[in-house]
């Protein structure tokens, strides 16, 4: 997925002189996750800007630059550091248009590597997209494969609203199909989910890395003749709930999969909406698979115990068949 994101960003910077990149280590270091590899050489220090370790300023300067007419793509090295920018993101980027009743717009993208499972320890082990998606005024996009990442990032950059775009660290090295003749204007609409696998027996709702686990689980379940439909919401705000409802009408069963902590999170929101709107279609309780509810540890075996995986999804499905 890394290459697709890099390509989308690179093409958008070539297309639009107002698009620029700022963040820690994005320039000389070539990007901590190598997404901006080669950018400094191609676009120069004016458009590829290393920042100090100043997340509050990164978050807020992106808003100011966007207000003034640029299209910043500001990178948080990892989403954990964006906690320091919650106020800049939720109270400024997301609200600056509303404060002044539409006088301004803030066309910016915050990019952040997200996820855990690599012994990064508790303070560096989060996939907190739902926390940021709690706040209206910003969009939140979380791709699960290369093509989606490409189309979603392009849309995010071209859209006139602020977008938080997270990239699952575990997906960076994963190859996934891209069309030979990929259209440089390939855009995935904001808020448009996607069916990643069709099936009539159970609906698996996920996003980002969760889609991987859901698809693996679907393959395992297929061996027992259980056909799972995998709904990739792709955006946590706005939510494409209609897509989930349509699938659920067919399957009447659902398991929600996420990399995040379990409480006040994605699974809760989706399950609540489903039972509220699809009550008559419910044949079984809706299940949630998420991280264990603990700060996450360094030691690898217990970290894996805490991490969701395909087996946990399969087990949850079996409980409701």
């Amino acid at each position: 997925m890394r290459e697709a994101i890099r390509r989308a960003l690179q093409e958008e910077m070539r297309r639009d002189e107002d698009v620029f990149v700022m963040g820690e280590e994005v320039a000389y270091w070539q990007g901590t996750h190598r997404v901006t590899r080669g950018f400094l050489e191609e676009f120069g220090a004016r458009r590829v800007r290393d920042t100090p370790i100043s997340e509050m300023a990164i978050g807020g300067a992106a808003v100011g630059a966007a207000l003034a007419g640029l299209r910043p793509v500001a990178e948080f090295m990892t989403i954990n550091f964006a906690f320091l920018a919650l106020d800049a993101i939720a109270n400024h980027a997301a609200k600056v248009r509303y404060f002044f009743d539409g006088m301004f717009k803030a066309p910016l993208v915050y990019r952040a590597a997200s996820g855990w499972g690599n012994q990064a320890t508790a303070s560096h082990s989060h996939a907190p997209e739902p926390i940021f998606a709690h706040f209206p005024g910003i969009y939140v996009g979380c791709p699960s494969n290369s093509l989606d990442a490409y189309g979603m990032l392009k849309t995010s950059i071209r859209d006139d609203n602020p977008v938080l775009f997270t990239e699952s660290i575990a997906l960076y090295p994963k190859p996934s199909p891209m069309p030979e003749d990929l259209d440089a204007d390939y855009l995935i609409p904001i808020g448009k989910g996607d069916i990643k696998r069709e099936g009539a027996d159970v609906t698996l709702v996920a996003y980002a890395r969760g889609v991987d686990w859901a698809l693996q689980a679907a393959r395992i379940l297929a061996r027992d003749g259980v056909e799972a439909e995998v709904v990739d919401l792709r955006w946590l705000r706005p939510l494409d709930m209609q897509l989930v409802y349509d699938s659920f009408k067919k399957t009447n069963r659902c398991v929600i999969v996420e990399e995040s902590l379990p409480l006040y999170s994605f699974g809760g929101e989706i399950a609540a909406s489903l039972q509220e709107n699809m009550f008559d279609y419910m044949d079984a309780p809706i299940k949630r698979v998420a991280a264990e509810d603990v700060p996450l540890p360094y030691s690898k075996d217990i970290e894996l115990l805490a991490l969701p995986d395909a087996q946990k999804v399969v087990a949850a499905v079996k409980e409701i068949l």
Partner: protein
Amino acid sequence: MLLDWHRQMTLIRQFEETCHQLYEAKRITGVYMHLYSGHEASGVGSMAALRKSDHVITAYRDHGIALILGMDPKAVMAEMMGKKTGSSGGKGGSMHLASKDHNFWGGYAIVGGHLPLAAGIALEARYRGKDDVTMTYVGDGATNNGYFHESLNMSAIWDLPVVWIIENNGYGMGTEVERASGQIELHRKAEAYGIKSFGRVDAQNALEVYAVASKAVDYARRQGPAVIEHVTYRYRGHGVSDKQYDARDDMSAELKEWMETREPIKILRDCIESKHGDVGETLAQHEAEAKAIVADAVKFAEASDLPSTYDDLLRNTYVGSELVYKTESSVGAGID
């Protein structure tokens, strides 16, 4: 110029004192309204150093800034009352005034939150090779917040054309500068960023303010960020819900002294007269004008409607996206 300054300061004072009365009379509601009375020379003198294409941003003590820039007092007063005709359509209120036409970016309520925005606005000028300056007002208390540190440092390493004006009115709410900041000469905080400081200015004297601001603006235009400390005072306490003057005699005594000895409008008036001789009539006229303008503004505001529908509530949460999205194309080779 001086006469025009007097006109501006008189209008601000009239506007602010009227806001105070309207709040007491519950004709303006809410919990937050922070008045610029006493600060007039700080804004008027410094903004006189700007040109039309420059940018301005401040915190919640923003009425005076808005009026100096030439925002319509009607729209500003309507905003106080949360009316549809308000400059922010009633969504922002006292703390969120702004005007695109004047490059006035607001009006922000989180202490320090607007400082990185200022850096970003100035970055746009550098990015496009323009030499427009972003004049940024920040309170003494806000200089102790992380936002201040990160924003000034960013402006320094990127040579951003920002003039950071620290409006030191002695207090952050009820806390004296001495109890909140290890460094009490606030302009010396510039040292931590290698930013040029233009020192401390008596901001009750509009001419002194102007003289220093002109140098700083010129410097920012040609080189990079500048810091100025304005020493001023707030006449109406921290905000309308601040009842500390009743509570603390020392503060009201202090206020009395400032008003008697360092009243900005009087100081300006004196030096106008020392220059142009007796202009009493003109100045009296300014006051009459100000009263009329503010009275009209109140009339206009009170005659306007409140937003009231769900549509009013939801509008402008997002920009309606005009993008045309292509449909997904077929899939081939793998890529990471």
